[in-house]
């Protein structure tokens, strides 16, 4: 939020863009899963893409600079799922612990 206008950080129309990175890149499996998770959440009526955007905007400019695109998405999805009561903080913490104990690699973390 800029003091003088009330315009929020993400509302960038009309500000100089600077250089635009045109690099092409592939997506990691976890990133594809985050994208699919968003589609599933919408389909199940848990929350909408508007809620995703709202949570992304509220994360602030620092998150925009320090986190990757899908890191920001999964944080915003989690925020909406907690708000909608899909799971509790306690359930989320227990599940994260369980997966962490399986091992440090993506393969080890999978459900068997």
């Amino acid at each position, binding site marked *: 939020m800029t003091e003088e206008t009330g*315009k929020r950080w993400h509302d960038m*129309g*009309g500000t100089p863009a600077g250089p635009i990175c045109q690099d092409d890149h592939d997506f990691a499996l976890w990133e594809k899963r985050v994208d699919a998770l968003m589609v599933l959440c919408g389909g199940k009526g848990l*929350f*909408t893409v*508007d809620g995703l955007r709202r949570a992304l905007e509220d994360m602030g400019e620092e998150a925009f600079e320090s986190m990757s695109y899908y890191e920001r998405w999964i944080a915003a999805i989690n925020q909406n799922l907690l708000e909608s009561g899909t799971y509790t903080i306690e359930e989320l913490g227990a599940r994260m612990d369980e997966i962490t104990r399986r091992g440090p690699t993506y393969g080890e973390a999978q459900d068997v």
Partner: protein
Amino acid sequence: MSERVRVKAMMPPGHVRTPAYLRGKEGVIERALGHFRNPEQLAYGLPAEEKPLYRVRFTMAEVWGEQAECPTDTLDAEIYAHWLERL
């Protein structure tokens, strides 16, 4: 006869669906797009009534003033009725 509208200049915090660079600018309604659930309510997981959505056409001169490179070019934006005032 195109209907002239002005985008409300209000600047509330929160999830808004009207870009700041169009606030207070005047344009014409290019077409009505139908009614859609208000995303500014959906964003918070709240019940959302259907609101009319319009495609509004602005000239670059109106949007950017003296800075407009091509003043007669136009820009279309889709804006909900509750962000518009009829002129």
